[in-house]
């Protein structure tokens, strides 16, 4: 049962875009947990609306919905796609899986490795060779690919802890080239120009390039992408990822509190490499062959363009970038070589204007807007009793902010009213009816705060002897003496207090 909010609320800010539920306060709270873990499926946050005091349940993280929407629509639309679109979708899933795992290496582990395709290719070759020459059935190819990826990853992880980021990137850039040359030289492994053909596959051979085969291929590739995303979630947001997040900014500090970030990095690297190995064997099975083209520099650059356009370090960026680049590269074949040019131009535009790819634009825009806002606020605001922007965010009662701004403007106005004539008028007649200007000024003085307010104190030793004191504003704390001057009449003392206040007003 839901409870409607009683007051009509206006649509201000982002509230109308929030996903809100109004749970029944009488029912006990229950939240669904992911099986075998203590995690929840969605990030619901409970709070009382400060205006209506109604309990509301807010979805604090809407990303899972977007994921379900995007991947779900792809899965639903797939059976209705044409054959060529279906194979494009399958290739998209495969590359997206590669890029998600690569993001794990670059983003989570912080190792700028460009040896991704080398790992994929080597594992693919290992699995294909095991199938063709040793007769290993296809389900075990995935396992062999994973193990091969793990071994390659372990080998590559060795220098990663020794070398600085960019050094390592440039070093691994050559890795794929070495692999290509090596595979082509290894005649017993790949006799026909470096490629292994007729690899066994999960797609039955009579279905190959048929509608059924394409559908099965897409389904498997989709499952592969889901697996890669699950692996990303398990590593990036659980213990290993959190440890590395701590170590990212302050390596020395992390080390000092006992985090072995080097070990965590190589662990992430090796796990991701094992995943890439599985994808490599899948690659060999999907095409039922593997050729040295998998190691080519162009292929690597295209993959790099994908994660760069999407945004480095985020799974959604990797998938989005892959979708864009695959759509251009495989979906617009009639454009010819201009496809790559278009991709390069997109890459340049994104790099020039976005700090971290397309998925980073939202945050970048918010930062930009906040900066502009605070700049504008600082321009509006000048010093003198008024609240500065830095202070304003710390004052809970915003009325105070506006009151101080009003006060400041009022003082500016009153300062203009202070003239020698006005002072003379007050000297002659401190009490009684006053002119408009003088009564405005006096009204302002009367409204002043109790702390440091001036008062007249009659001296105990004589009837017509007055001194001026300032009140402390605190109960129990005595007023302080302003000066030692003694006034003979009460009118004189009134006027002296008035002059002091005018002085304070002009100084403020």
């Amino acid at each position, binding site marked *: 049962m839901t409870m409607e909010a009683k007051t009509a609320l206006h649509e201000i800010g982002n509230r109308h875009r929030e996903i809100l539920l109004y749970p029944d306060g009488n029912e006990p709270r229950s939240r669904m947990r992911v099986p075998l873990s203590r995690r929840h499926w969605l990030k619901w946050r409970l709070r009382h609306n400060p205006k209506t005091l109604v309990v509301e349940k807010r979805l604090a993280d809407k990303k899972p919905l977007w994921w379900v929407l995007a991947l779900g629509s792809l899965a639903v639309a797939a059976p209705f796609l044409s054959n060529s679109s279906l194979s494009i979708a399958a290739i998209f899933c495969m590359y997206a899986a590669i890029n998600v795992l690569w993001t794990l290496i670059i983003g989570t582990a912080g190792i700028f490795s460009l040896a991704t395709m080398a790992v994929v290719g080597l594992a693919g070759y290992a699995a294909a060779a095991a199938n063709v020459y040793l007769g290993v059935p296809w389900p075990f190819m995935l396992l062999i690919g994973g193990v091969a990826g793990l071994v390659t990853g372990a080998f590559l992880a*060795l*220098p990663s802890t*020794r*070398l*600085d980021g*960019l*050094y390592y990137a*440039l*070093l691994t*850039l*050559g*890795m794929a*080239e*070495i692999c290509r*040359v*090596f595979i082509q*030289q290894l005649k017993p492994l790949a006799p026909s120009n470096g490629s292994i053909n007729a690899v066994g596959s999960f797609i039955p051979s009579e279905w190959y390039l048929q509608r059924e085969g394409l559908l099965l291929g897409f389904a498997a590739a989709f499952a592969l992408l889901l697996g890669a995303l699950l692996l990303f979630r398990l590593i990036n947001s659980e213990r290993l990822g959190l440890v590395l997040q701590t170590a990212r900014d302050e390596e020395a500090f992390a080390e000092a509190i006992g985090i072995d970030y080097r070990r965590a990095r190589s662990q992430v690297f090796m796990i991701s490499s094992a995943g890439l190995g599985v994808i490599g064997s899948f690659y060999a099975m999907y095409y039922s062959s593997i050729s040295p083209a998998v190691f080519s*520099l162009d292929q690597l*650059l295209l993959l*790099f*363009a994908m994660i*760069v356009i999407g945004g*480095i370090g985020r799974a959604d960026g990797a998938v989005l970038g892959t979708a864009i680049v695959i759509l251009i590269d495989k979906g617009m074949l009639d454009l010819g*070589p*201009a496809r*790559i*040019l278009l*991709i*390069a*131009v997109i*890459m*340049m535009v994104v*790099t*020039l204007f976005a*700090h*971290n790819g397309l998925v980073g634009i939202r945050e970048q825009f918010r930062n930009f807007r906040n900066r502009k806002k605070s700049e504008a606020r600082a321009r509006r605001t000048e010093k003198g009793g008024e609240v500065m922007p830095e202070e304003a965010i710390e004052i809970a009662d915003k009325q105070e902010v506006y009151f101080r701004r009003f006060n400041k403007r009022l003082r500016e106005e009153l300062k203009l009213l202070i003239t020698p004539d006005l002072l003379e008028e007050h000297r002659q007649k401190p009490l009684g009816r006053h002119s408009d200007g003088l009564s405005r000024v006096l009204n302002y003085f009367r409204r002043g705060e109790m702390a440091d307010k001036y008062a007249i104190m009659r001296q105990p030793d004589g009837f017509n002897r007055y001194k001026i004191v300032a009140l402390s504003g605190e109960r129990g704390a005595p007023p302080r003496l302003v000066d030692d001057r003694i006034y003979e009449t009460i009118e004189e003392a009134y006027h002296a207090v008035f002059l002091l206040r005018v002085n304070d007003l002009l100084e403020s």
Partner: protein
Amino acid sequence: MSAITLIHGLNLAAIYGLMAIGISILWSSVGMINMAHGATFAVSGYTTWQVSLVLKPIIAAAFGNSVMASVSMAAAMLASGILSGALFGVLIYLLAYLPIHDKANFAVRSLIMTLAINLATVQVLLYLFGPNQRGLPKIFGFGKVELLGVNMRYDQIGTIVSTFAIMLLVLAWLRYSRKGLEIRAMMQNPEGAELSGISVRWTALPVTMMTGALAGLAAVLLSQTIFVSPTAGATPLIKGLTIALLGGLGSIPGALAGAVIIGFLEAIVGAIPFLGQRYVLFSQFLFIITFLIIRPRGIGGLLDETRE
């Protein structure tokens, strides 16, 4: 080691040195890894080819078949290679340095920008000239000469001598000119240089132009032995990068030493019968990886922490 291997090694070392020094200087002064160095290489190769096509009849008409003709042809080709390289350097400066040099993530973003420039340039060259390979005229002529009992080809001598001369010129310019002083100040400490009134923008422009010109020169010289093609820049780029790494990014003497080591390694491995040309790249990378694992900063480089 035979004398032929020695000369071959020196020849390769000269060309790789030109590429590696460009990359190294650009990294240490501007803080940018130039992945478009290969594109500069290819563009200069094509420009020189075009210039040679245009100038051939003109020079033939002016000088006939004399020595003067081949000398002026060589000068024109070297000049066009250097000029086009420098102009492409300006393009890289305008696209990959000027808009983002004071923004977040400059190192990675400029690397991506130069990669994109590389991709785009290769495609444009493919579109304009097609995938065919083009041969440049031999600027140093054909033939061999025997010096100190060693057979040398003219182009090898020409490459080694001209590289040596250009390298000396560049180093002297860096050492003695006002601009060179500014560049060296920026290589030592970019912030300090800026605080002393050196404009980072106006110093980066001649640096990108100079490194582009070096790549253009390397293109003309290397095209004496290989052909010009849209993707011709990839191998020199990778070799230049790895040599710059081996030498330690930012160190000119290190890059020179690295170039000599890698050049000789290539010549020797190529000359060993059972290894041959196919294993050249493999052995080079293996050597560089091993070296960098033992000494991560390269031959003459500083660690990043020390540099900061």
